[in-house]
């Protein structure tokens, strides 16, 4: 296929240095596009490669991807507006997290990005009022399964997911950025206090807090699913805002190690490289476990990170009970 590397690093190389794409042959393009789609990064890639002299069929596919990403952002930003309208009577600003924040604030990390659910952060004390306002404005529970609901309420850092009955879009209401059971407890109150206004009634976390959240989402509670997109977010945030004050902020939330790893890995994938620990290499193997057909590869690595993510999120006894309940109620 002309390219020695054929896992996620092929996509990373093109995002880091778009000019590399000019050397791709048809097979190389085919693998790159399938990989970018599987990692939900085809809009980002299409924007990075905009302006290059590309083969006609590739140019057409990437132009469609840019139009699709743009339309996706219109829908995502409309969810922000409708949430703002629903919560305005409570006098509660909408503090945006992740993709919605990047797009709403026009950050580099949001350019061409596909945005899934709307994630917002609300004070713990106001979560019931926010829940009531959203239900009144047409959102409904996605999973009316009692077990998940009780589990969410008690241990998770967010309400069970809600979906809007007409627009079919999901909203996740967080009151902190890590599950309550995780050993690390970030300072949710200061996340809100330091948040930055980006429009009337709409705010985002302070840049360093955004980086801390991105790292927490990846390493402290996640199984690194969507890791390539998440690390691209980290890369863009570091490029746009730098890392001044980041280490102190990360330490304040008890996420120093996770943030340092996120910065190292994003530099390794998309930046100028970094000295990596053995653990970093394992994470990179998991994040780039994707082939030219868009298939998830390296099943053993993936399983290891899946178990690790649950381990991080809950103490052993609860993990056993959770997996047992899930296994028993799983429809076969």
């Amino acid at each position, binding site marked *: 296929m002309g390219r020695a590397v054929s896992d996620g690093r092929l996509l990373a190389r093109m995002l880091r240095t778009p000019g590399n794409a000019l050397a791709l042959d048809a097979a190389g393009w085919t693998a790159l596009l399938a990989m970018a789609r599987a990692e939900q990064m085809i809009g980002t890639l299409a924007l990075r490669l905009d302006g290059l002299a590309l083969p006609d069929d590739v140019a057409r596919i990437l132009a469609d991807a840019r139009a699709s990403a743009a339309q996706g952002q219109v*829908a995502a930003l409309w969810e922000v507006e409708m949430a703002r309208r629903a919560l305005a009577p409570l006098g509660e600003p909408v503090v945006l997290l992740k993709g919605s924040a990047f797009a709403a604030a026009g950050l580099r990390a949001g350019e061409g990005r596909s945005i*899934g*659910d709307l994630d917002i952060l609300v004070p713990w004390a106001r979560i019931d009022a926010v829940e009531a306002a959203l239900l009144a404005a047409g959102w409904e529970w*996605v*999973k009316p399964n009692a077990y998940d609901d009780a589990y969410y309420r008690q241990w998770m850092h967010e309400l069970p*997911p809600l*979906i809007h009955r*007409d*627009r*079919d*879009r*999901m909203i996740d209401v967080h009151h902190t950025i890590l599950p309550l059971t995780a050993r690390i407890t970030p300072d949710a109150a200061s996340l809100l206090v330091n948040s930055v206004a980006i429009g009337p009634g709409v705010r985002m976390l302070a840049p360093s807090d955004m980086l801390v959240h991105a790292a927490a989402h990846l390493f402290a509670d996640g199984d690194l699913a969507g890791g390539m997109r998440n690390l691209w977010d980290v890369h863009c945030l570091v490029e746009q805002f730098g890392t001044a004050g980041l280490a102190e902020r990360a330490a304040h939330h008890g996420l120093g190690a996770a943030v340092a790893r996120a910065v190292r890995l994003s530099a390794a994938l998309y930046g100028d490289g970094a000295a990596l620990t053995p653990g970093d290499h394992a994470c990179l193997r998991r994040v780039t476990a994707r082939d030219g057909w868009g298939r998830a590869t390296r099943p053993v690595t993936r399983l290891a990170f899946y178990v690790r993510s649950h381990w991080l999120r809950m103490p052993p006894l609860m993990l056993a009970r959770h997996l047992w309940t899930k296994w028993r109620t799983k429809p076969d």
Partner: protein
Amino acid sequence: MSEKGEHEGNRGPATTRRRALMLGATGAVAVVSIRPALAQTAASVAHCEIPVPDPGRAGSYIAADGSLVPPGTAGAFPPVGKPLKGEDVKVALSGGQLPGTTADQSRAYTNYIRRLQSGTSGFTCFASLQMPRG
């Protein structure tokens, strides 16, 4: 939807008569929103078992609630429709009724249109894809 200008014109110099407007009883829906097709969320896929709306059989009449009934059913109206022109915002926003229809006929037609919209858009395509569900 007739253009207001057209009406006044052909009725000569008489004072402009105010157009009738029905607010509709409660429950008489006046907005039909086109829902996005299968959103990326798996949740919406699970809810995709949507009844197929009855095909628009040419001969049927439309009952008051918008359902299709055999032709000639009491209280039902023959389907009717004519494309109209005019697109600037103020004129376009001037509502109206299907030409040659009564208010009841228009309301029955509105309900009929609303019924067509059961479920997400694009679902006839998925029904046809008939992806066997696990």
